[in-house]
């Protein structure tokens, strides 16, 4: 779950990390009120959960309360990567002598967290990572003893800090780690972390992605609205514990297992078709979940034909078959369906569908070829 900038910043502040003075506004009145308590120059930032917001015009500057009103008006009439702006964070502009990067993410190879720091932070950090990897400091965390203050000092030291700055920035690094672990973050980062001309440090921007699988430990995010961040289909999918990603083609795809669904998309593309979505029902989906998957995919009006590709392991083919029938009955599906169904309880599944007059294929590639053909003819 991607948190918004202001949520991430409030968490950082709770862990003692300096952030610019600021406040959240959902309308002009609130914005003016907040702006009056702050010392210009100010920054007005659209709260949308997408990267590259700055380049898309989502960050504006203001010298006065009236300026802020103008900026907020502009942002509220804007969509960033298709997402409407519903709130803004207004804060005092930080004078950065230097922009650093500091974050934590998951280190798959070492099977632990990894802390990442760079003295060349800012919008181009990804370019730095690619072109000058030696400027990125990576520090895998001992999974038993964690990232400790002295590790933070070692990193700070390697990044060239000493004296009072050493302790100040090491504390920020250490507290970022604590926040990340406490909040089950897949990613937590400050980019940029500003060094001011006075030698202080302030987190100018912050990002947190909470591990979706750990949300049961964080009930505070349970009631968080998903609207605005995701398409209606994605919201519906999340509610049904389905993994859905909207794409721009016309063949609706449902499968079990991320790898198989990806390979299904690849096959459709290979035969010249264009998938309308990625939808993984996961392992062991009961019939209700299959029905929900069909409902979600079909709610996308671009979909001309449907491809259901199930290879049962923990998922049972009979459950899938029942789900398809349930959804067909309830939704009155008329769009053509190509179904491929093999694996656990395959015979029973095929029997159910065949008796209901639905044809079932054995080969995924043959099925992909057929669905591309069907969609092309429509």
């Amino acid at each position, binding site marked *: 779950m991607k948190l918004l900038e202001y949520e991430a910043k409030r968490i950082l502040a709770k862990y003692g990390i300096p952030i610019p003075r600021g406040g959240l506004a959902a309308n002009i009145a609130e914005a003016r009120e907040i702006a009056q308590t702050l010392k210009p120059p100010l920054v007005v930032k659209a709260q949308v959960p997408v990267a590259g917001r700055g380049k898309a015009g989502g960050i504006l500057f203001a010298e006065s309360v009236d300026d802020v009103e103008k900026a907020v008006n502009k942002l509220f009439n804007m969509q960033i990567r298709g997402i409407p702006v519903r709130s803004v964070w207004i804060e005092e502009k930080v004078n950065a002598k230097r922009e650093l990067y500091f974050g934590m993410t998951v280190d798959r190879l070492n099977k632990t967290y990894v802390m990442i720091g760079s003295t060349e932070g800012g919008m181009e950090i990804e370019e730095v990572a690619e072109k000058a990897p030696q400027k990125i400091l990576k520090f895998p965390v001992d999974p038993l003893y964690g990232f400790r203050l002295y590790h933070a000092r070692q990193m700070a030291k390697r990044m060239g800090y000493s004296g009072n700055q050493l302790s100040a920035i090491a504390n920020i690094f250490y507290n970022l780690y604590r926040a990340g672990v406490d909040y089950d973050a897949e990613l937590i980062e400050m980019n940029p972390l500003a060094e001011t001309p006075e030698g202080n440090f302030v987190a100018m921007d912050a990002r947190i992605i909470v591990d979706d699988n*750990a949300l049961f430990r964080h009930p505070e995010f349970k009631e968080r609205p998903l609207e605005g961040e995701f398409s209606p289909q994605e919201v519906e999918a999340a509610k049904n514990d389905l993994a859905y990603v909207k794409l721009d083609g016309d063949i609706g795809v449902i499968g079990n297992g991320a790898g198989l669904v990806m390979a299904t998309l690849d096959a459709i593309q290979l035969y010249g078709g264009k998938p309308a979505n990625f939808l993984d029902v996961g392992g062991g989906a009961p019939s209700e979940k299959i029905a929900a998957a069909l409902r979600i995919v079909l709610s996308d009006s671009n979909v001309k034909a449907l491809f259901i590709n199930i290879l049962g392991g923990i998922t049972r083919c009979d459950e899938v078959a029942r789900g398809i029938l349930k959804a067909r009955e309830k939704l009155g599906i008329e769009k053509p369906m190509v179904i491929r169904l093999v694996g656990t309880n395959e015979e029973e599944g095929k029997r159910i569908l065949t008796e209901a007059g639905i044809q079932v294929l054995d080969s995924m590639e043959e099925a992909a070829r057929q669905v591309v053909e069907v969609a092309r003819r429509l």
Partner: protein
Amino acid sequence: MGIIVGKETKAIVQGITGAQGSFHTKLMLEYGTKVVAGVTPGKGGTTVHGVPVYDTVEEALEKHEANASIIFVPAPYAADAAMEALENGIKTIVIITEHIPIKDSISVMAYACQVGATVIGPNTPGIITPGECKLGIMPAHIFKPGKVGMVSRSGTLTYEIAAGLTKKQLGQSTCIGLGGDPIVGLNFIEVLKLFEKDPQTEAVVLIGEIGGNLEELTAEYIVKEKYPKPVVAFIAGRSAPPGKRMGHAGAIIMGRAGTAETKIEAFKKAGVEVAEKPSDVAAMLEKILNDKLAR
């Protein structure tokens, strides 16, 4: 033969009384896997498909000899179940459960490393040495004994490709699903090392997907170690748009590394044949093994 599991494997099933645990215990027993005991807290004293159930792993191991565990425990408790098995000396652990928090998996892997145990998964279909032992949830009928080792990050895609091999009479030594999570126990390189030492395995199928850079590192390993057995790879996610999230964190594309292109490129550079679609794998493998025979 094959690797990690075989005729000598004696398994316990943790979470045996749940719907999935019970269902797959039945299938594993039918396949011939030696399931000696089950564990579900509070359900001690009952039986599931004739397998006695205990409240704790400790108790199960007092009554039965076992050297492996397969875990169907719900995500919030699954890491704890794995720790329990590890602490009680079990050295092969298969975690079927998906949706385990990353933080929990990190602890499990650190503990496993400390006690020298092998963890497969989480979020894996498990492992099968066809004809000997199935410790997993894969549909058994698509596998048959043979000389191809399979290792994959994806569950259903493995079945897809295994079914293709079997149809062409290319049996498997052992098939392993590494698991689809960002943090998993075994990785490609470790499995390649085991397959290298296994006399039954003559070729390896490696099934990767977008996200992470383990495929790239594996390609490096193959070059560096001059890996002696032929490897055929398939990478899912060629059509994935960059930056989109495909089902789980394992499929987040991170920068330029981690795309299907970088992985395919890395393998090709390493002399590994890369299949365009799942069904090509069997054909390519057939040719490699025939050529080998001819030599």
